[in-house]
């Protein structure tokens, strides 16, 4: 009833003092400024990324795309993560050991893939590349080593270009953990032209909602007119707010399905654009699978769900018209048609409460706990039949699962 009281008192004194015509707008402006400054301060304190990154250790190799410089070390702190060391060995792979000829009785997995495979945002010891061979060795009783050729922007086309290097590493198995982003950018080989991405943004404007258009217009204004330092501040505040908001599972899924440009893969009926992406992916996957088959090396593909997909699987329900298992089914069909092996780890996320907490909320990469979970799921699939040579049933010295 405060409102009514205020209004009643207002009736008695209907005229606003003259000073208030200036004072009230000033109070409003000052309050907004104060709030914005405080938010900026918090975001600077908590979410400032480092100026160096793994890309400082990389260069473009003609005909092969961007790869790491051998024997280089870089550090990076992403806006959401901890300071991480990226150490590349004599072959330019992120590993704590040097490349050398394969020893007898060693089972060598060569892993290809993009940032997730490389272990972006996590310490090397916490990454899939370090965890998986350790778990497999323990489970099978065999010495399993993993050569990690995973690289930032290691997209399907790039790996097709450097597939000779993959086979030259003498793999007993080629493991390709891939995700929706890799498939969406299957044809990209760095360095790319940024203008092609801007054109895509402009094309999307016509299909945006009312608030989406406002957001796009503000984004356009910010990108093109506002000074870069201010743009960076705004981006950082935006990231901080999204980081906290996206900790909510439902809020994140709703927002992702409505706004993310790569959410099309979750639709039961993928649009023409996604069908093209899948066709592009199939082109490179088929070529690599054929070469692997010719070299008698098993080619194993695993779909690593992105954050929204993992959350939807865990929730067990999703909006009509979507299916988080859809891309996995598509991928299985593509991979197995050309002689490869597909490992399905998506059902493993059903029993995980809030799996989105194992990913960085805005960046979207799995964190150390996410890598451990994914390593566990891949390990389980490999030792239970996906890779006959690693199957526990075929290993006389294998450690039974119950002893783990």
């Amino acid at each position, binding site marked *: *009833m*405060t*409102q*009514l*009281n*205020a*209004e009643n*008192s*207002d*009736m008695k*004194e*209907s*005229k*606003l003092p003259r000073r*208030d015509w200036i*004072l*009230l707008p000033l*109070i*409003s*402006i000052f*309050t*907004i400024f104060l*709030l*914005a400054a405080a938010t900026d301060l918090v975001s600077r304190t908590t979410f400032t990324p480092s100026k160096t990154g793994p890309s400082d250790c990389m260069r473009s190799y003609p005909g092969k795309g961007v790869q790491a410089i051998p024997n280089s070390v870089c550090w990076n702190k992403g806006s959401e993560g901890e300071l991480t060391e990226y150490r590349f060995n004599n072959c330019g792979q992120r590993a704590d050991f040097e490349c050398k000829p394969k020893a007898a009785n060693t089972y060598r997995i060569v892993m290809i893939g993009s940032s997730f495979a490389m272990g972006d945002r996590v310490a090397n010891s916490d990454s899939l590349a370090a965890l998986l061979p350790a778990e497999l060795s323990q489970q099978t009783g065999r010495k399993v080593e993993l050569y990690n050729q995973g690289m930032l922007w290691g997209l399907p086309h790039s790996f097709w270009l450097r597939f000779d290097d993959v086979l030259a590493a003498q793999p007993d198995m080629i493991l390709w953990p891939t995700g929706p982003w890799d498939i969406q950018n299957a044809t990209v080989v760095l360095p790319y032209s940024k203008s092609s991405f801007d054109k895509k943004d402009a094309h999307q404007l016509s299909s945006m*909602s*009312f*608030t*989406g258009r*406002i*957001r796009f217009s*503000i984004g356009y204004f910010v990108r093109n007119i506002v000074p870069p330092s201010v743009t960076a501040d705004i981006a950082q505040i*935006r990231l901080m*707010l*999204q980081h906290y*908001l996206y900790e*909510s*599972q*439902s*809020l994140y899924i*709703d*927002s992702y399905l*409505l*706004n993310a440009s790569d959410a099309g893969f979750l639709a039961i009926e993928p649009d023409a654009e996604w069908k093209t992406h899948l066709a592009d992916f199939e082109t490179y996957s088929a070529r690599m699978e054929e070469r692997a088959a010719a070299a008698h090396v098993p080619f194993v593909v695993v779909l690593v769900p992105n954050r929204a997909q993992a959350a939807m699987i*865990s*929730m*067990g329900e999703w909006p009509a018209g979507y299916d988080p298992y859809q891309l996995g089914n598509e991928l299985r069909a593509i991979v197995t048609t050309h002689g490869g092996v597909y490992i399905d780890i998506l059902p493993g996320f059903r*029993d*995980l*409460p*809030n799996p989105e907490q194992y990913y960085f909320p805005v960046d979207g990469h799995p964190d150390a706990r996410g890598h451990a979970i994914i390593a566990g799921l891949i390990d389980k699939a490999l030792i239970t039949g996906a890779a006959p040579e690693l199957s526990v049933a075929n290993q006389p010295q294998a450690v039974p699962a119950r002893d783990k």
Partner: protein
Amino acid sequence: MDTASFQFVLFGLAIALVSNLNRSWVWRSTVLLLASFTFIGLVTHSPLVLIPLAAFLLLGYACLLMLERGWSRHSAWSILAILLVYIWLKKYTFLPHGIFLHSPYFTLGLSYVLFRVLHLIIESGSSDKKQHIGFIDYLLYTLNFTTFVSGPIQRYDEFARDQFAQQPIRLGPRVVGLQLERIIRGFFKVNVLAMLLHAVQKDALARLSHPLPLSLRLYSAFELVILPPFFVYANFSGYIDIVIALARLMRVRLPENFDRPFSASSFLDFWNRWHITLSTWLKTYVYNPLLVLLMRRTSSRTLQPFLGVFCFFVTFFLVGVWHGRTSEFLIFGVLLGAGVSINKLWQELLVRVIGRQSYKALAKNFTYIAFARGLTFSWFALTNFWFWLDWKQLDEIYSALGLVSWLCVWAGVWLCATIVLASWELLRTSLLSIKTSEGPVLTHRYARVAYASVFGLISVVLTLLLSQPTPPVIYKAF
């Protein structure tokens, strides 16, 4: 448009601006009627879907005309006809499915139209002073876009007093400022507060379906109990803030629908503060006539106090049932009815045991009020399960914990609500005691401008950041 969206607020402000171009009631009424038609047109996809609503309105007006022409003895039949058509159009699940219309049609706002039409018919049938209501006035009252979707349920005489006034109520800069501040506050409640509360609530529900440690399940259950009342409050009262402010800018005063409900010291008091216009309507047209009828037919003095208890139960059972068409709402109604009737019985019992004076003293005791407030909140929170969950979800969340754990959660909620709400009341009282010559500092216009700026900035930033559709106003579904 049928939500507390930017578009709706901009539409309302534009209409308020046009409405104020001329102070004559003819101009303002013309603008309101055209705006209401435009509003309905914007939320429908085809004019054909409006036919059932139009027929319902025509039926209501025909009944009204009949009563105006002296057929008062037919008022009961008119009310029955209106109710039956309403139940049929709303497709209540206890009716056979085959009798419903199977092509899609528009039912948004039908519940609130029902209350307005019934109000006109009852008043017309019972009043000795016959007042003619023209068809245009009838449409203005029933289709008023500010009250169409979710109320508040305004009486016709109050609407006519402001809408058809030769000298409309004043609209100075202070009033405009207050209304703009209220619109921003309402927008913040619906689009930020309610949206965040709903997200946490959904997350808690999803977590309960996983085999988590008991402590985490208890925490999720605690969230599931305490959040829905705050969510519904933020969502519904936020929308009401917006429409009351928009109507005031059009020089019409709508009745308040909320009065700090979580400060209520009893369940009876709660319903004087929550969805006030609905409970007032039902008390006026159900509780009072029913009590009078029963009192006339009962001579036993010992029974008379219990008649009030029974009438409260019936009235609030109807409040619950009105909210939905499924069996969950029957339980919701029973729990609401039980809440108020047990509350009334408790009052009667205390008066008999300790005497009226002692009871009055007890009712003013701080600790007694604090525990009663906590109990009121926790009972309302419990009833809310049948408001927003279906039987399948109810079974899932019950199975996740079991009876004993749920009782512990409920007891914990009572205790926490007692402490937190009492602390809040103390804090609020002490903050409002800081005054200047113009009143409390916290409600001063300078402070209001500061709040509005903060709420406005947060609302705009979050709306643009998440770029989601505006959350629906939960009461529009009823």
